[in-house]
């Protein structure tokens, strides 16, 4: 590894070799909320707020679009009900029809409960798959985890991180912006090369 550390505070004047992002710490949801709106208004895209719990309305303050998890749910449910219909119909009408008290082999009302359950199961699985995939999980490592202060992102601190991959990212301007909106403990976070 190189001689410069992966994470160094802006004040120290050092900088990691390969910059991943610049992060700032905020004290509470209110400060973060106001700050997020300002970052959004500057037109950044590759940035994120990190909070210990869901903050109502923060996605709007950040200008995020509605989550696409619903599409996954629909895809799961749709394929589940179609697949289930085929499974039940093919087996109980063609492959192994069972004559029970003269009831018709194709009896949709009798299929409904299992169709319903075969709708539920894949849509639940796909909702979770959608959430995991769209959130960029699972991950065994992330550059932010090298930042010691960041362990408090699940506890009591709030962070805004602007990534270096953002087209509008500019070291000085972005650091200046984070400072201007009230961020403290400004830090450069490096990525492993």
């Amino acid at each position, binding site marked *: 590894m190189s001689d410069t550390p992966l994470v160094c505070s802006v004040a120290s004047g050092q900088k990691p070799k390969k910059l991943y992002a610049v992060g700032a710490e905020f004290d509470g949801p209110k400060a973060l909320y106001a700050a997020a709106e300002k970052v959004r208004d500057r037109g950044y895209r590759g940035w994120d707020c*990190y909070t210990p719990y869901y903050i109502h309305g923060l996605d709007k303050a950040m200008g995020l679009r509605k989550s696409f998890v619903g599409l996954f749910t629909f895809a799961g449910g749709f394929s589940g009900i179609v697949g289930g219909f085929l499974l039940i119909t093919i087996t109980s009408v063609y492959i192994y029809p069972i004559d029970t008290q003269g009831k018709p082999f194709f009896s949709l009302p009798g299929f409904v409960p299992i169709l319903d359950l075969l709708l539920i199961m894949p849509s639940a699985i796909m909702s979770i798959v959608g959430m995991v995939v769209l959130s960029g999980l699972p991950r065994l490592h992330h550059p932010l985890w090298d930042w010691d202060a960041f362990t408090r992102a699940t506890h009591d601190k709030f962070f805004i991180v602007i990534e270096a991959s953002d087209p509008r990212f500019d070291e000085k301007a972005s650091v200046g912006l984070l400072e201007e909106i009230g961020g403290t403990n400004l830090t450069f976070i490096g990525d492993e090369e």
Partner: protein
Amino acid sequence: MSYFTPSTRPSPPRYDLLEKVEEAEIEHARKQLAREPYVTQGRDAVWVGDHIASVVENPAPLWWYIAVSVAGGVASLTGICILYLITTGVGVWGENKSANWAWDITNFVFWIGIGHAGTMIAAILYLTRQKWSSGINRAAEAMTIFAVMCAGVFPAVHVGRVWFAWFMAPIPNANGIWPNFRSPLLWDVFAVNTYLAVSIMFWYVGLIPDAAAMRDRIKNKILKYFYAVICLGWRGSARQWANYEFCYLMLAGIATLLVITTCTVVSSDFSTSVIPGWHGTIFIPYFGVGAIYGGFCMLVILLVPIRQLYKLQDLVTERHIDMCCRFTLLMGLFVTYIYGMEFFIAYYGGNINERAHFYNRVFGPYFRTWQLMMIFNCVIPQLFWSRRVRRSPWLAFVVVLFPSVGMWLERFVIIVSSVHRDFLPSSWGMFYPTWIDVLTFTGTLGIFFLMYLIFIRFLPVIAIAEVRSVLPEANPHELPEVVEAGGSHE
């Protein structure tokens, strides 16, 4: 001469006094209208996290070891009994030709029912924006999972030759025979498995942010790895939270549909047959409310000691217990109505078999269970009309023990008193439980409490992130200062 005397002159109205009275009235009204906080004593997000995590972080108290040993010992009874049953045959239970379903299905419906209250709290109350439920939904969902696991034991082993249980799977069996998808018993297989799987998924998704919080704070290396793996690398970014909340919403909707489906399917096991006492369309709501009734009782039984032992009174407040008691009362009233309605329909429907069955319920050989059921389920929960009873957790604890037993008796009444006398008096018989019946059921209580004890030891018993997000500080856009500062949003 003037008759006007100073004494009759009206004194000027004392506006100052009036104002004071009004102020006091307004103050009083405000106090009455004010919502009770979800977390009492003004605890903040940091305290919430520290306090819930401390249950896991602190060394296990002595009572926990004792409780685990006792529960583990009792749980082993089920294992031993099932082993005996498999090696000997289902004849070790008290079932016979007229009463071919008895304690096994009673226990199954009892445990499945307990699960329903957990889903009710975690999904239906979430969808209806009952934010207080965030304080108890983790505990309730855990109850669901463990109860459904206990429920699954009985249908799995009651088939007799357990090694053929795979015939229930939707695959062609060894003779190329497919299961009958129109059979309620197969619906049941699907319902129970789906219910267990989706409950675990729903519970697990709720756990992800909390597991991340535990990963970041716990000192123990092994547990740190454990939490790091189960949280999937959660970072709590706003984009993740947006997806997470949407996923949770979807799962809540799915779970709501599922809980209704499950109680419908379980009731169809009975109502699609032609046996008097079972053959009724009322069975679907009957099983639904009965399930939620028993489940809320079990939840109070779990929560009251836990909040006391781990000092969680500010998170699982008296209001939570109060709400559970109100649900208990409401469901108790529904159940009472349905008991009455069953008798009315038996009388009004004019079917002599149905009438004979309900006569048999009250005056037949199992009249004691029916009487106890009526007292436990319909009479004793009326104590919950009193606010004082609902607000004293330990008193509520004692009261809910009765409907808990009562709901088990209800399933016994439905099942055994219906089947032990069928249409032909020559085939009438009686069911008496054997020791194996009793010990198998007792053992599932042990399994349930054992799993619950392990759960409260290693996972946060209250959803940290969810409780934090219902605190006032998680709603910054409702606070006036921010509106002034930001100003650009609705």
